[in-house]
């Protein structure tokens, strides 16, 4: 007969065991993925945003990966994604924006990327958007493909992930927060939440929801400065906004 205290101990040891197995499996998966990767495509490009680099398992974005950014429509997730891809665009070349809603506004992107390097693709249907996204991801000449998608099936997600792996560029898909917890084939899933603060800059709380190495349920705060078009850690002097606990246990 187990006492309550014993049961608690048992549960904790089970959790530890599970955690160990999970970590082991993640390591194996990482090794297998490294084997699958084509020669010379295992570079990691830091984002140039210190808090984000600290959050990402590899310290930046690995070539040939497909990354989901979850955020509300006016939360600035796309803007942060574009800022994070700045070094990648400088090194690798063009940005293809799949813009089915015809809402992408290049003047806002002009301070971040060279517009000569931007091509806007405006598909008429969701099927066309997925086709264009896949084509663009598997093209080695493209540095970054950015797309906003409301819905993405697991099958389409897998295709996109394989396409990104073949192409070697980066694929950013911005999705609504409702996609959190849904099955996903993305290499990284990041949640971006706009946090109100007293400071003049815009603050985001970015949480790593999933990665191949396992998500640490970590969240970081970062602040965007309009004037310098730069993202950095929030100033120590500014009143700190409370970091809410991760919604998913």
């Amino acid at each position, binding site marked *: 007969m187990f006492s309550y205290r014993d049961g608690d101990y048992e549960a904790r040891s089970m959790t530890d065991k599970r955690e160990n197995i999970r970590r082991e499996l993640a390591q194996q998966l990482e090794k297998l993925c490294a084997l699958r990767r084509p020669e010379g495509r295992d570079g990691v490009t830091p984002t140039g945003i210190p808090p984000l680099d600290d959050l990402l398992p590899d310290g930046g974005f690995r070539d040939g990966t497909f990354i989901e950014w979850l955020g509300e429509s*006016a939360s600035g997730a*796309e803007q942060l994604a574009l800022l994070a891809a700045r070094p990648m665009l400088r090194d690798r*070349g*063009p940005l293809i924006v799949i813009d089915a809603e015809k*809402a992408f506004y290049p003047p*806002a992107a002009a301070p971040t990327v060279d517009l*000569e390097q931007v091509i806007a693709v405006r598909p008429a249907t969701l099927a066309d958007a997925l*086709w264009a996204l896949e084509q663009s991801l598997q093209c080695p000449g493209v540095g970054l493909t950015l797309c906003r998608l409301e819905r993405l099936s697991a099958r389409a997600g897998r295709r996109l992930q394989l396409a990104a792996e073949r192409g070697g560029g980066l694929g950013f898909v911005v999705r609504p927060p409702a996609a959190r917890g849904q099955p996903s084939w993305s290499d990284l899933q990041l949640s971006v939440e706009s946090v*109100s603060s007293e400071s003049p800059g815009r603050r985001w709380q970015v949480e790593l929801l999933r990665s191949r190495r396992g998500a640490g349920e970590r969240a970081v705060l970062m602040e965007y400065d309009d004037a310098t*078009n730069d993202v950095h850690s929030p100033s120590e002097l500014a009143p700190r906004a409370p970091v809410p606990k991760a919604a998913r246990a």
Partner: protein
Amino acid sequence: MCIRLPNWPQERLCRKRPGPEAERAPADPALDQSPKFGLGAMASARLNLRRGGHALPDMPTEAGGHGTRKSGFDKALVADPSADLSALRKLARWCRRYSPLVGVGESDVPDSLLLDVGGSAHLFGGEESLARQVVDDLSRFGLTAHVAIADTVGAAWALAHDGQPAPTRQPKAARQPKAVREPAIAPAGQHGDRLRTLPVEALRLAGDVVATLDELGIRTIGQLVALPRETLPSRFGPTVLRRLDQALGELPELIEPERPEEPLEARWGSEHPIEDRFAIETILSRLLDELRGRIERRNEGILEFLVELQSPGRDAVRFAVGLVRPTLESRRLSELVRLQLERAAVRGVVGLIVRITRRAPLAADQSTIFDTVRRDGHGTLAWLLDRLSNRLGRDAVLSPKLRPDFQPERAVEYRHVVGPGLRARDGKREPAGSRSVPCRPLRLLPEPAPVVVWSIVPDGPPVRLRWRNADCRIVRCEGPERLETGWWREGPVSRDYFRIDTEDGQRLWLFRSADDAWFVHGEF
């Protein structure tokens, strides 16, 4: 016959190509604001300043920048002799209606056409009638033409260029400054007499030779003929005697005719309608291979081709296949055809036509606008853009470019990645962030969305809004930023923009219009 177009470089820019559309050209020269050349540009600038009344400081940029009115006064055009020549060649092909043998007169400045009218003048009611018709036809396209007919090419050229120094007939509109020159026609066998009185420049001689002759006091062809013939080559070079003989008919001179370009087209016909898509693709590939062989010899690649599928009792299905850079790879061309065929409603095809409409040299890849494509050594990006443009349509694959315009919707223009009208970009590149762009949202709604907004004081900053079926409190508001366009623009706007943060963390771009209505225009 020689047709001289004294103002060809200017007039070719003012007028459209010869053809039916030229009929619609404005009749009143004061309304014509097309870009002109050299002095013409200045004249046009004066015209516009006079027409515009008192000029506002930013008005020229406004009108020049948006293309609402085509105006040429904000730029001076640079002379382009090669473009002049190619346009003249096109005109020569159009002039084949007067004679089967039409060529461009050889000279430093391409300005004349040569026609052999020996066998065709009677069809127009005689030489004089033909000459008048040519002048009338060309004047309808806005071209000033001096026409001369003589026994030899040289004589016709001389008469057209210096035949009649003074205009003899004024046009009906007395205000119009242009003078129409009577055609100069030398009756058969009398061209020698007509030539004698003309200045030596009419012999198509180089400037230095004319200067030497002038120093010696030889100013007319008659004086030149009077000199001992055998001394001419040693004194003035071989050209003088050759030109003189050509003009007088002692030496034959041929017109180098402009041949119409052979259309690059391949056809295939069938008695029984073909339903199978794969069969159609195979036939189109074969037709493309046939055309490929024809242009391969010129070391050119295909940039655009048209495909036409004919079905009995239905309208023909036509589509254009465009490429970012020229290619001859049959696998790529067939793939692009397949992408377009997937979208076309193809049933019962009995005839297929493939026609190449644009091509470019394969080696010198000048047809590409993008530096990125140029740098893309393996051509993977070009291939991707080809595929995207052909499957999604040309309008769906675009390259953005900023425009200096205050109205947010007009601050960017898009250009097709594939298709005609591309211009090579100049070498100046601005690195990202070098241009100071005001803070703008990354997503601009295609149409501003009306929104209900509450303010505490009238005309004050907003404090609450109802957006997407939810009431939101506004926690931060920056603005107003007033954006106003000129009264001379169609649909001028006057808006006060605010950048607001809601309590949910949304950042929106709102504006209040001149009539106090609120709209959401963008999301940051």
